[in-house]
């Protein structure tokens, strides 16, 4: 499902706008998912997505085509996300009951066709407290955990995306998961118990 585009070949003669739009078409849905996990609501995720793609387009001449486009884009998104948080001067948190900014409730598209209907229901139920737990993390920890556990990236790739060392990535992921555990224990103990008992 995820697009890595590691070996994306781009015809050198093509217009750079065409090249960029082709990559954007292949990656924007996946990137929106990443943005949503970072921001916690659709409106802010779309803002982050647009701003990140604009920055990527402006600096497309600097993109090293030997690396996955998504890694480069996620690096821009990670930095843009932190910039936007700093500009707003807040670390946004999301309670379990809080709706989206537009007043609607978050909706989730369960894409795993192999999962049973019962499992889909469980996953959708678990999603809200997990997302709320992500929103209560330190932003850098949240980025590292989402890249590792939702996007499935290896530490080396996360270090590349976050522009830091593998040791820092290791620390951020570990501390992020511990923040998530503390949040679930306090705010959603029933969810926490069901998660632990599943394994």
């Amino acid at each position, binding site marked *: 499902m995820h697009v890595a585009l590691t070996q994306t070949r781009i015809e050198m003669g093509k217009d750079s706008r065409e090249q960029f739009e082709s990559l954007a078409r292949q990656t924007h849905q996946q990137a929106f998912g990443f943005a949503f996990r970072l921001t916690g609501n659709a409106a802010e995720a779309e803002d982050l997505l647009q701003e990140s793609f604009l920055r990527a387009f*402006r600096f497309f001449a600097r993109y090293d085509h030997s690396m996955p486009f998504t890694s480069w884009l996620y690096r821009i998104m990670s930095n843009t996300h932190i910039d936007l948080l700093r500009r707003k001067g807040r670390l946004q948190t999301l309670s379990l009951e809080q709706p989206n900014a537009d007043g609607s409730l978050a909706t989730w598209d369960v894409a795993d066709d192999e999962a049973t209907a019962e499992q889909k229901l469980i996953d959708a139920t678990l999603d809200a407290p997990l997302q709320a737990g992500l929103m209560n993390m330190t932003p850098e920890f949240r980025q590292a955990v989402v890249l590792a*556990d*939702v996007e499935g990236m290896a530490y080396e790739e996360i270090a590349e995306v976050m522009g830091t060392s593998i040791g820092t990535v*290791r620390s951020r992921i570990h501390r992020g*998961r511990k923040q998530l555990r503390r949040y679930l224990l306090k705010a959603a103990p029933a969810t926490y118990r069901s998660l632990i008992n599943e394994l």
Partner: protein
Amino acid sequence: MNCKLASTKLSAYIDRELGTDEMMQIRQHLASCSACASEAKVLESLKFALNRTASVEVPEGLEERLFARLRMEPVATEEPAVAPAAKPWRLVGAMAVAASIGLFATLLILRLNAGTSPSQPTLDQFSARTSSDALPVGMEIGREQMLQSSTDPFAGPVGGLPAVYGGR
């Protein structure tokens, strides 16, 4: 391996991001320590839960809005001007030279005007005033403003890409 050391490596262990020796050491420790084994299970459960979170539904019209915005953006014909953050000593050096020239010129003017104008400030008064007055003019420029692309007409407050991207 003791619990304190093992606990810092549990996430990397469940992610299989440790070397062979460390993986072996943690495995042996977990076999003999129920507290750490329980901690590892919790962390693995969280990883598993996040890994299978449902994919996010993309809002209707997102693609159209994104591409409409992108098409308003002109194609960059050359690399945008970005502050050379990789060599900050150059900026510091330039500022030091400018400050030295300014100080020298000030001293020269004060010496030339000495005795001709009683209202001129002394060197101490001048230094005290410039040290407080100069900052708002010359120094309080945000890092983001310094990194703005001068060639980009759409560059807003978040238009500049931090130089830490390093060409990537």
